[in-house]
């Protein structure tokens, strides 16, 4: 693996800041007073989040191989635990903590 130089790291973080700030400031720049929002933008605002979070879940799991190793079993079990706890309790932190602890135990003790 090629490690990034300090300058490259600074640029990477700066681009994250720039991307974030662009999305936070842009609406205020585009709609300075109570101008109506274009219908297409409103539509994207409603439908985009669900697709993005689905994409992010896949992004997090992109290195999991279904054909080698444990065939994604520890990930699948932990995902079920996250979903199970969340449907049961609906408490974000509990679900995240439960799933993470489950995964850590699995990869450290069971699927070693």
């Amino acid at each position, binding site marked *: 693996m090629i490690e990034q130089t300090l300058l490259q790291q600074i640029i990477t973080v700066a681009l994250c800041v720039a991307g974030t700030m662009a999305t936070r400031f842009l609406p205020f720049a585009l709609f300075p007073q109570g101008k109506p929002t274009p219908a297409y933008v409103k539509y994207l605002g409603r439908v*985009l989040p669900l697709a993005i979070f689905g994409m992010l879940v896949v992004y997090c799991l992109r290195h999991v191989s279904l054909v080698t190793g444990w065939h994604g079993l520890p990930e699948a079990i932990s995902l079920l635990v996250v979903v199970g706890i969340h449907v049961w309790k609906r408490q974000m932190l509990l679900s995240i*903590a439960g799933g993470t602890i489950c995964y850590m135990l699995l990869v450290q003790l069971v699927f070693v």
Partner: protein
Amino acid sequence: MRQKQAIWKALQAAFPYTVPIFAGFWFLGLTYGIYMNASGFSFWYPSLMSLTIFGGSLEFLAVQMLINPFAPLQTLLVSLMIQSRHLFYGIAMLDRFRYTGWKKPYLIFGMCDESFSINYAATIPPEVDRGWFMLWVTALNQLYWVSGATLGGILGSLVCFNTKGLDFVMTAMFVVIFLEQWLKEKDRTSAYIGVGASVLCLALFGPDQFMIPTMASILLLLTLLRKPLERRETA
């Protein structure tokens, strides 16, 4: 004197709203700091990144961006896509942030999911200054997040337990957010598009190249499906 009282009053009104965020941000912030530490970064990284980016999910992804080979275009595009939801927070806050004067740039800078949610939804008592209330909410939340991340980065080197698998916290966080949106929405077409396009592009382009084609196809599909989806919304 009256000004001081108004600031103090706004703090008293704002603080209770931020208590749950304190718990959440310390847990996630500490985890983030420890995760960065476990990935080989000094505590300066989580500290400065939590201060400047101040957007939880992207900061977790940024760890990957720093570990993987330098890819500036993808970094910017991923940041814009992940954070694109802020565009709509901004649209929702256009009226609420008006007439906040010098506080406005900071309110926009610090508008993470949680600060937005509180500032959007909180019932601010009429005798409390709106601008100061929202400023306190934003500043307190950022304080929790930065202190948690810094502490995690410092303590990470002292953590004796085996941190293998800790990065699953990021996956779990997105699964929970996805699930929340999923349970809230009646029409889940967009979720199928997001997951379907990602899985397909992952299979086609491999783990290092699939994000940009995925994002492009999501935008394209949602644009093509606008009419039927909007018809179903109103139905």
